[in-house]
């Protein structure tokens, strides 16, 4: 099948499917056709379509379980008006648990609790599993054989991601020795002028601020 003939078919298929389609799945759908396209042809058309739709109201996006046609998130304001439905909100406890599973998988409940400093309710684990965002990968070989949790492709799909690599990077941990021990021992209260910076700025800075904070300290000492 010529690429120009193949393109609208794939377009129609992506639009009709109710879940993302992989190259293999698309390929299978042409089984039996005299001019069955090769997987490379399909890939080529998919890439062309992804490009063609850029900047339009709808886009073709590759997520963990394949390609899908979705509305460009830039226009979600109006779509929300159309549906007049409040999107679900997730509690901090759930999001923190999910983040720990996503970044530290495979991870046990005990490990999550150790980092969060509080117990994780069974409801949260249950909700995450029912949403099919989290699954048991196996059991840790320690007493009690606790479940090891990991995330699923459905999790990545939901958050519009292709792989775990696309998750926002974790902020870096700072070493204690970057601080002057003497200063650290004093109950230092920073001058109030500094207190103006907004919370956000500070958080965004935190990744890079390691260097800066050292400089500050140097100035003080």
């Amino acid at each position, binding site marked *: 099948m010529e690429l120009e003939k193949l393109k609208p078919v794939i377009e129609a298929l992506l639009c009709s499917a109710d879940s993302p389609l992989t190259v293999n799945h698309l390929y299978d759908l042409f089984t039996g056709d005299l001019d069955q396209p090769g997987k490379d042809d399909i890939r080529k058309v998919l890439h062309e379509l992804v490009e063609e739709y850029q900047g339009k109201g709808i886009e073709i996006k590759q997520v963990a379980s394949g390609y899908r046609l*979705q509305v460009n998130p830039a226009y979600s304001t109006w779509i929300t008006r159309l549906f007049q439905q409040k*999107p679900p909100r997730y509690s901090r406890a759930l*999001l923190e648990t999910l*983040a720990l599973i996503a970044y530290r998988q495979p991870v046990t409940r005990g490990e999550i609790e150790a980092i969060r400093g*509080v117990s994780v309710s069974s409801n949260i684990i249950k909700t995450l599993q029912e949403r099919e965002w989290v699954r048991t990968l196996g059991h840790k070989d320690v007493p009690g054989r606790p479940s090891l949790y990991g995330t699923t492709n459905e999790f990545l799909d939901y958050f519009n991601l292709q792989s775990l690599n696309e998750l926002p990077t974790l902020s870096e*941990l700072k070493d204690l020795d970057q601080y002057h021990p003497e200063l650290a*021992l004093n109950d230092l209260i920073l001058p109030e002028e500094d207190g103006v910076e907004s919370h956000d700025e*500070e958080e965004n800075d935190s990744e890079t601020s390691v260097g800066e904070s050292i400089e500050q300290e140097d100035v003080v000492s």
Partner: protein
Amino acid sequence: MADLFQDNHTNQSEMPFALVEGEPLTIIPQDLYIPPDALQVFLEAFEGPLDLLLYLIKRQNLDILNIPVATITKQYMEYIHLMEKMQLELAAEYLVMASMLAEIKSRMLLPRPEGADDEDDPRAELIRRLQEYEQYRKAAEDMDALPREEREIFFTQAELPDLETEIPEVEVSINDLLMAFRDVVNRAEQFASHHIERETLSVRERMSIVLSKLKSDDYTEFKEFFNVEEGRMGVVVSFLAILELVKESMIDLVQNEAFAPIYVKARG
């Protein structure tokens, strides 16, 4: 308790504890009576002792690496007392943290030996935990900000052309059946293999045939179950099947008088 609310340089983007006419409130005005409910919501917003500590540290724009243990411990204890006063269900973790803070505080008072490195900083473990928790707290926030289905990501909904689809019937091969049978037989040890030898099967099959011929309220003549054309074996199998059915109380044999026809009736 007093200095808790005197904090004027509270961060703007801090979690609001209440909405007043749509405006988020992050600082509790001193001159205002705080309804206990609102305070409760505020206190319940913490995700545990580490979260509360981070809040106290951030509120003063301090760096985690440089926790003024004495001050923070004092403030932490004030919150704990407040929570107890509000009769909030205080998770045990909060009390564990309180004792950890007290311990660090007392160790900080001791003179530190010459050449002590950071390993010996009594706060090292706490700082490590705070940093690690903050890392994932931030990660959770970042994740929450990702465009996601149901909020920013919507799918296209197109009208499909009329399609003719049919659901094919489930296919089972005779081998699936045999495998299933083997599995179940293997599981049930009391079920010895000789039970399903060919002969037995014939009897069992014949038992089914006999039963299906019977209607529960009708009498069927005994001889109807025998077909001479089947030969000796067939007759024997039918006879065994009927005997087996009688034994298993599935049928009754009825004979009104000697040499009268025998009737077979399904039980009940």
